């Protein structure tokens, strides 16, 4: 018997209850088919309350916009609306969905690079434009009707601090003055504030970006503009595991394991030496931790939360991952089990791209629904059904809690963030799995079709 290196996924109580309810899982598959994405709007509501709780506790004036791009689900979008959040949309399609979900235009913010037609709609509706470039601003200035006040947030980048990661997005600080000038001159625009988004958990990076952004706030005041918002975007982590040890044990073993033992031959998991400690799937700290640490970090020996109040700025955040953390899972039937390339392979009714974002390996073990008996000694690899050697749902050897066989249902936990939609294709005539919202109503789960795809 070789050693086991399981990576058990943390499970929210609602997800755990659903997986344990074999009858509910069976009902979902019978009614909606396999594979199937299940979302839990109740979990999202809990996440929204947790984020808002942190901001309230620190006494910061705030607003939260749900980054809809994280999941195309209409049920989750409706959940964000019910929780009183705003919507962060990245395209005309997402904008339509937000309007359909009942968000008023003044509760919607458009982020990311925008095409001219999208810019025109943003201006016409008067939703907040989070500008990625001077080109966008010029367009926006040209189409915003004189006398209107289309709110503009300038997304900044090019920070001097070495701890702030570089970004391809945003307006370089060197161009900030030109951007302010464009807003000042445009008869239909109003500067709402400045923004950044950092792809890191490091509170020091956000502190430095905030500090540098204040120079733009200052320049705005000098021009007679009245910024009132600092938008720090998202980048809050998900909590994938209960404890760090299994991931550390696995990553450590990976360094010395013979090739092809823990990873399917010809692949690596992108865990280069020294790069795995902070891997997102190894994170066991709460999703609100990054926000909490940022607000508690210090500027001039004073907590950031306090400094933000002193700067008279409302803090906007645009979480996606943190809001849908644990708010979804993916079910698939096991087609069959076979030996291939000298290894134990479980072939699933699913394609890799339908559960894997940007081909980034999902380093967690799925759960066998209604699994019985002792955990098998050996791990297995998981294969998809496309005509590609690379269509492995897991290139990492996974360790299941019981023996899988044909017809069993496998549940991938915590897949609502980007995993369902970011890369899903219809290759080979396999459409992306349908979505269903599962709501725990007393002792029972009820289901609501939620067939929205593609973000």
């Amino acid at each position: 018997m070789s050693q086991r290196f399981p990576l058990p996924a943390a499970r929210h109580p609602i997800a755990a209850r659903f997986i344990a309810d074999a009858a509910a899982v069976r009902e979902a598959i019978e009614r909606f088919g396999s594979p199937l994405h299940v979302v839990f709007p109740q979990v999202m509501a809990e996440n929204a309350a947790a984020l808002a709780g942190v901001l309230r506790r620190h006494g910061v004036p705030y607003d939260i916009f749900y980054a809809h791009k994280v999941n195309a689900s209409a049920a989750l979008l409706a959940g964000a609306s019910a929780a009183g959040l705003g919507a962060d949309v990245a395209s005309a399609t997402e904008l339509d969905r937000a309007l359909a979900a009942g968000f008023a235009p003044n509760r919607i913010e458009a982020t990311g690079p925008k095409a001219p037609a999208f810019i025109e709609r943003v201006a016409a509706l008067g939703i907040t434009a989070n500008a990625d470039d001077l080109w966008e601003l010029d367009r926006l200035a040209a189409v915003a009707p004189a006398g209107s006040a289309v709110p503009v947030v300038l997304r900044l980048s090019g920070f001097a601090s070495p701890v702030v990661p570089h970004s391809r997005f945003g307006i370089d600080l060197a161009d900030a003055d030109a951007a302010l000038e464009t807003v000042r001159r445009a008869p239909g625009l109003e500067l709402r504030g400045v923004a950044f988004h950092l792809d890191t958990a490091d509170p020091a990076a956000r502190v430095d970006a905030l500090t540098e952004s204040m120079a733009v706030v200052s320049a705005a005041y000098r021009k007679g503009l009245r910024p009132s918002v600092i938008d720090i975007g998202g980048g809050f982590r998900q909590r994938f595991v209960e404890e760090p040890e299994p991931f550390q044990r696995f990553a450590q073993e990976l360094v010395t394991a013979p090739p092809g033992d823990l990873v399917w031959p010809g692949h690596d998991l992108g865990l280069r030496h020294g790069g795995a400690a902070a891997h997102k799937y190894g994170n066991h700290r709460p999703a609100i931790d990054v926000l909490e640490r940022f607000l508690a970090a210090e500027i001039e020996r004073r907590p950031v939360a306090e400094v933000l109040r002193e700067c008279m700025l409302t803090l906007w955040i645009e979480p996606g991952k943190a809001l849908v953390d644990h708010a979804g899972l993916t079910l698939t039937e096991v087609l069959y089990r076979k030996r291939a390339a000298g290894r134990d392979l479980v072939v699933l009714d699913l394609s890799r791209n339908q559960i894997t974002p940007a081909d980034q390996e999902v380093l967690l073990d799925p759960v066998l629904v209604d699994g019985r008996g002792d955990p098998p000694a050996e791990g297995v690899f998981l294969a998809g059904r496309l005509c590609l050697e690379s269509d492995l749902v897991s290139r990492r050897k996974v360790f299941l809690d019981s023996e899988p066989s044909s017809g069993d249902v496998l549940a991938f936990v915590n897949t609502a963030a980007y995993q369902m939609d970011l890369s899903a294709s219809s290759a080979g005539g396999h459409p992306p799995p349908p979505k269903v919202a599962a709501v725990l109503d007393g002792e029972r789960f009820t289901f609501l079709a939620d067939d929205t795809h593609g973000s």
Partner: protein
Amino acid sequence: MRYDSVLDMIGDTPLLRLDPAAHGVPDAEIFLKLESANPFGSVKDRVAWALLRDHIGEIAAEERVVLEASSGNTAKALQIIASMHGVRFRAFTNRVRVREVREMLSLLGAEVTEMPGLSECPDPTAPNDVFGVIGDLMEGEPGRYHHTSQYTNEDNLRAHYEETGREIYRDAGPVDLLVGGLGTTGSTRGAATYLRERNPDTTVVGVVAAEGDFIPGIRSAAEMWEVGLFEPGFYDAIAAVDSADAISASLELATRHGVLAGPTTGAAYAAARERLLAGPGGPVTAVVIACDRMEPYLSYYRHRRPDLFGVAGPAPAPATAAPSAAPEDLEAWSAAGEHVVVVDVRTALAFQAGHIPGAINLRDDLLEQVMEAGMPFSEASRVVFVCPTGDRSARFAARAAATGRRAYNLDGGVLGWRDSGRPLAGV
């Protein structure tokens, strides 16, 4: 003692016996191995010299550039040794987190490449891995670089085995307990290997920072396995110490024992004492590795313990409230040619971003101290105190009013001023 090269001064550091009356652990002999006495100030002097000693001539002759992943003491020592030999050195790090260390490296002319933290969004091509970058550089121009690789180079271990461990045994005899911080793990492991060969019962404890906490120079429990030299099975225990305990213990070393050692040493001393106090008792010889000095971490101490740096708490508010002024009053006074001083008590960052035109900035805690010393405002001027909303500035206005100044609190604060459409000035 006379030396002909500073490099000859590396190693053979003192072993200091701590006064039992001052450390308070019954029956224990606790020794500090003062690696801080090395000429560049830390245990890493040994490592840097061990990594370069046999190669530096060749590196200089071939004009190669030395590369290392380090953000602190190793980079400092390597830079000094490289400079002395006319060799270029480049350091790579995820982040230099302590200001003095960063400034010291600049002063010495080190080329430090700081690389931001790991990407967490789905982007498998994020190129920010220190070891990957060093590897890419070396592959790109073979023969141009020399990677000292402190984390995986066995010379690091050997230096501590042959020197540090031997010296400890020579001066202390058989050791029952060895405690050291886990950074590259070389110092503790190398010395422990030697000591265990002399006394197989030597207990070895590696000290890490508590989960989510930060102590400069050592790793946190979660990052430990990243280090190539780290073998979990080697240690009898891994002790996690939080930064507050590390700081307290290092202050105790300074005030009771006269040893100016940094927070990592504090962490190791705290872990050693806790283990000894919890142990079975009886005579025991313990050695704690003091890896560097206290002074380079002043900003770390200041950040974690501002109370030790004379930052006073707020004084009680006077009984009587000061009169309040509305924005219109300020404008009217100014229009009438009166001299009005607007004192903004917010942080400099907030003040610089936007303030009432003409205001001066005296941050509340500073103003508190200034007012202790005497009222700094003329009786001839009106003085208006402002904060974001008017709640915090009120007590300053009250105190000034109590001394006969014509002092006011701005109603609604800077926020009210801004939201009424009045202009703000930026710096």
